[in-house]
C-alpha cells in the first residue's frame, strides 16, 4: 500500500482546501474483523431414528466444496408461488421457509435459507411420554443402571444441526438469511434489462433423467436399431452374411451381448451467466450512515441478482481506499473498515485487471456497482476516467452510487463523471445515483431503479 501520509503531503503541495485536508486526516482511523466456526452437540445420534441411518449417511468420508443453495432460488420461488395457489384453491399452505443454522463463535452462525414441508399421514406419535423424559435409545459400553453417562445443556446452541427450520436469529446483515425474500420483494418492484446470452459454457444444475446411455446385455429399454446393428456386426464376423445384398436373417445368431439397452443418464442443461463486481470505498471517511446506505443498496442489488438469475451469478467484492483489494465474501465486504485515503481509480483498475486476466468479458455478462461518498483524492478524475472508459467497453451496466455526507454537495466523483460526458453519451452502460446520507429505504430502492432500469 502506498503511504497515504506521503500521498496527502503531495496533494497538499499541489494546493488543498484546509477543510478537505481536515477530512482526509479524519479518514485515517478504523478496523475490521470476521469470524466463523463449527460445532456439534455431544450425542448427535441420540434422537436419530433407525431410518435416518442409511448407506449414504453411514459410509461417509471426506469433504467437498459446498454447493450454494442460491443455485436453486428460482425453484424455491416457484414452490412459494404454488403454495399461494394452494390457499386460493381452499387448502392450507404447506411450505415454510426457514433457516438452518450452523452455530459459530461469538454468536455468529452460518445460516442458509431452506424451505421445508411435512407430509401429513396417520402415524403413531412416539412423543406421548412423561414430561422431562426425552425418550430412550440404545447404548453400549460400561455403566451401572441409573448411571449418568453424559450431559447436554438445554439451551446452548438452540438447535441440533439439521433440525427444524424457522428457528433462531440471524445476524443483522447475514446475507444468507434474507437475500432471497428480499430479492423477491425487490423484483416485484422493478425490472432489469434482459440478460444477453453469452458463453453458455458452464453447466447449470438443472438436470433431467432420460434414457440416453447405452448398455449391452441389460437395461431399461431395448434399443432396437442399435441391437439390429450389433446383430449384423456379429454375424458378419461369424461369416453368416456372405452377401450384404441378399440378407437372410434366419441364419443369424443372436448373442445376448448383442442386445443394446438404453439406460438412464443425467442430461445437463446450460444457462447463461452473469458476473457482478461490487466496489466499495472503505476509506476512513465512509464511516456511519454512508457505509450503511451504500452497503444496503448493494445488499439489495446482490439479492435481486441472486433471485433474478436463479443463482447463475457470480459476485466479486472489491474494497478500495487509495489501493484496491478483492475480498472473498460479502460479509467481509460489508464489515471491513480501514483508515486511509480515497482513490477510486484503484478499484476501477483492479476490475479491469481481473476481467482481462480471467478473460471474463467473453463468457459473462458483467455488471459493476460502485458505492462511495464521492470523495476522491484524484480530484479531476484524471486517473479514474480512462479506467472507467475501459470498463464501459465490456460491461452490461455500471452503476455508481454516491452517498453524500451532510453539508457536502457536488462531490469530486459526481463532478468528474458529469464532466466526462460519459453519462450523457452512454446512458445504457453508465448510471449514477446521488443521494443524501439521510436517505430512507424507499429512496435507496428508488436509486436501484435508477441504476439498473
Amino acid at each position, binding site marked *: 500500500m502506498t503511504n497515504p501520509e506521503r500521498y496527502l503531503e503531495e496533494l497538499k503541495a499541489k494546493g488543498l482546501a484546509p477543510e478537505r485536508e481536515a477530512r482526509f486526516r479524519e479518514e485515517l482511523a478504523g478496523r475490521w474483523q470476521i469470524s466463523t466456526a463449527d460445532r456439534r452437540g455431544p450425542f448427535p445420534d441420540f434422537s436419530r431414528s433407525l431410518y435416518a441411518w442409511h448407506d*449414504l449417511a453411514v459410509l461417509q468420508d471426506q469433504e467437498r466444496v459446498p454447493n450454494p443453495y442460491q443455485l436453486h432460488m428460482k425453484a424455491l420461488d416457484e414452490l412459494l408461488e404454488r403454495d399461494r395457489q394452494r390457499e386460493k384453491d381452499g387448502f392450507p399452505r404447506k411450505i415454510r421457509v426457514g433457516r438452518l443454522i450452523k452455530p459459530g463463535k461469538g454468536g455468529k452462525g452460518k445460516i442458509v435459507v431452506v424451505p421445508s414441508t411435512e407430509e401429513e399421514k*396417520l402415524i403413531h406419535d412416539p412423543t*406421548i411420554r412423561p414430561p422431562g423424559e426425552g425418550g430412550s435409545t440404545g447404548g453400549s459400553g460400561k455403566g451401572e443402571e441409573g448411571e449418568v453417562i453424559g450431559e447436554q445443556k438445554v439451551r446452548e446452541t438452540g438447535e441440533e444441526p439439521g433440525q427444524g427450520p424457522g428457528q433462531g436469529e440471524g445476524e443483522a446483515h447475514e446475507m444468507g438469511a434474507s437475500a432471497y425474500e428480499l430479492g423477491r420483494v425487490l423484483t416485484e418492484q422493478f425490472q432489469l434489462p434482459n440478460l444477453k446470452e453469452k458463453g453458455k459454457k458452464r453447466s447449470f444444475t438443472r438436470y433431467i433423467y432420460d434414457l440416453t446411455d447405452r448398455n449391452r446385455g441389460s437395461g431399461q429399454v431395448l434399443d432396437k436399431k442399435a441391437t439390429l446393428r450389433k446383430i449384423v456386426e456379429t454375424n458378419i464376423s461369424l461369416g453368416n452374411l456372405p452377401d450384404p445384398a441378399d440378407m437372410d436373417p434366419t441364419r443369424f445368431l443372436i448373442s445376448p451381448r448383442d442386445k443394446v439397452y438404453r439406460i438412464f443418464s443425467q442430461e445437463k442443461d446450460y444457462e447463461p451467466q452473469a458476473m457482478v463486481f461490487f466496489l466499495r470505498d472503505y476509506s476512513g471517511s465512509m464511516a456511519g450512515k454512508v457505509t450503511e446506505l451504500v452497503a444496503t443498496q448493494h445488499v439489495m442489488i446482490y439479492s435481486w441478482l441472486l433471485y433474478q438469475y436463479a443463482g447463475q451469478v457470480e459476485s466479486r467484492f472489491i474494497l478500495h481506499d487509495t489501493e484496491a483489494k478483492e475480498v472473498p465474501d460479502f460479509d467481509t465486504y460489508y464489515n471491513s473498515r480501514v483508515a486511509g485515503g480515497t482513490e477510486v481509480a484503484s478499484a476501477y483498475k483492479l476490475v479491469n485487471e481481473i476481467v482481462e486476466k480471467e478473460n471474463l468479458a467473453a463468457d459473462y455478462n458483467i455488471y459493476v456497482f460502485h458505492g462511495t461518498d464521492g470523495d476522491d483524492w484524484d480530484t479531476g478524475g484524471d486517473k479514474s476516467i480512462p479506467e472507467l472508459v475501459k470498463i464501459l467497453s465490456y460491461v452490461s451496466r455500471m452503476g455508481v452510487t454516491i452517498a453524500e455526507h451532510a453539508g457536502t454537495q457536488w462531490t469530486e466523483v459526481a463532478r468528474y463523471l458529469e464532466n466526462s460526458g460519459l453519462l450523457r453519451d452512454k446512458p445504457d452502460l453508465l448510471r449514477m445515483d446521488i443521494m443524501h446520507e439521510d436517505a430512507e429505504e424507499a429512496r435507496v430502492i428508488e436509486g436501484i431503479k435508477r441504476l439498473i432500469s
Partner: protein
Amino acid sequence: MELINQHTKAIMEGCKERARAAGLTFTDESLEYIVTNRDLIELSPKVMIPTLYDYWVHDVEVLRGKGEYELYPHNPYETVINTRPPISFYNDNNPDWLNVMIFYHVLGHIDFFQNNLYFRHTWEYDFTGQALSDKRVIAKLRAEKGRWVDYILEFARSIDNLVAYHDELSPLFMAPETATSSRLDYYFDVFLQVEKKLPVGEYLKEVARYNGAIAQNREEGERIFFAEVTAKYPEMEAHFTKSQNVKRVERRDLMKFLVENSEFLARDENQWMRSVLEVVRKTSIFFQPQIRTKIMNEGWASYWHEKLFLVDDRIKGHEVDFARVHAGVTSMPRVGMNPYALGMRLMYQLKENGDKGKTGYEFNRLSDREQRKHFDAAAGKGDEYLFKIRSNYCDYLFIKDFIDQDFTNRYDLFVTGKRLDPQRMVWQYYVKSRDANDYRDMVLASLYHPPHIEIAPERGEEGMLYLVHHFEGKQLVSEYIANTLVGIEYLWGAPVQLETSEAVIEQQRGSSGREGVEEPEITWQRVVYTMKEKVLSRQIL
C-alpha cells in the same frame, strides 16, 4: 451420471465370483453408476429412483438437502436400489481397495433383495422402468389437469402407509399343495362356523371326514365329500353361490378401497385420479419391504463385506484402511442405535448359534448361565441357518426372536434414557436398563409400524366413510389428522369419520422429576373425528 469404467467393473465382477462362491445368490447383470454428491442429494427424496414421478415435495426436500449440505458437507460412498438389474451409485474418487469393500456390501444388499421373501413381489419386474412409465403418465396428466394432479398426489401420499402390504404378499407364498377350492374354504370357514355355528367337536369331525375322503380318493375325494354335504345341508350350494357374488370389501387397504368404492372417483371426469392413486399405492408397496428389513439388510451387507473382504487376496496391504472405515460403519455407538452394527452382531451371533447347535430345544431348555455359555454340540449348521433367516425374516421377527440376554450381555448393550435436570437445566443421558427385554422393546418400538386402520362401511351414515383405528398403545400424531382427513374426504367425495384413541395425561403433583422418574398417569379415551366440508370436529365417545 455415468457407468463405472471397465477397470472398476472388472473389480466388481471379481467380487461377484467370490461372493457366489461364499453362497450368495443374485442375478448376473448389474449396473453401477458414478454420481456426484449433488446427484445423490437430488435422488434422495426420490428414494434413489431417478425415474420416480415428479412431485413438489421432493423439490422442497432437495432444496433442504442442499442447504444442509452447505452447512455440513459429506461424501457418501454408495447406495444400491432394488431393480432389475440392480442399480448402485458410487462416488468417483474411491480407491480400488475401498471399492472392493463397497462392492461386497452392495452384493450383500442385492442378495438380500433377491432372496428375502418380503421382497417377493418385487422380483418379477424392473421398478425403474415401471416408475418411468408412471412418471410419464403423471407428467401427461399434469399437462391436462395442472396443479390438481399434485393435490391428488398429495392426498394419495397422505394415506400411502394405509396399504395392505401383507395381503399383497400372502398369495405369492401359497404352496401348491395347500391350495383349496373356494367352495371348501366357504364351507369350513364361513358356512359351518358362521352360519351353522357348529360346536368344535362336530367341526373337527367334519375336517376328519374330509381328510378321509381325500385319502381314499385323491382325485374325486372332494366331490364325494360334497355329495354328502349337500345331502345333509341342501341350502349349502345356494349360500355358497350367493357368497361368491358378494363383493369382498377391502377393510385394511384404504387406498384400494377408495379406488374401488369411491363414487366420486368413479365419475367420468375423475377417472384419472384413480391412476394417480394406483401409482402412489404401487410405489408404496414396492418400498414397504425396504423399511421393514432395515436392520437385517444392513446387518447382512455389513456381515458379508467384512467376511469377504478379509479373505480377498486383491486387497493385501489395505487391512488397516479397511479396519478404519469398517469400524466407523459398524461400531456400536456409546449412545444411539446403529442398525449396521446391531444387525451385523446379530448375524455373527446366529452364525455361531448355528455352528454350535444353539438353535434347538436342547439348548433352549438350559437355564444355567455357565452351561449356556459353553454349550457346543458342534452342529456346524451356521451358514445354512443364516441363509434361512435371511430368506424368511423381517426386522420385527429378527429382533423379537434373537435379542436375548446372552446377546445384550456379550456386547454390553443397554437402553439409554434422557431426562431433564430442571435445576441445572441440562439433559442427562443415563443407563436406563440392561435387561434384554427392555432393550428388545426399545428396538421394536423404533421399527416402522403403520397404524392399524380398518374401514367399517356398515358404520358410516349416509355415504359417510367410517374409519376405525385399532388401539395399540399409541395415539396418532394429532396435528396431522386434520390435513389427512381433508384429503380422504376429497377422494371419497363425502364426509369422513375417524375413530381413534387419545391420551389424557394427568400431571402428577409433588414429584420433583429428578430422583426416580415418576411416570405420569395416562388414561386413554376413544374419540371420533369428523371431517365435513374441510371442517374438523371432535367428539368423545
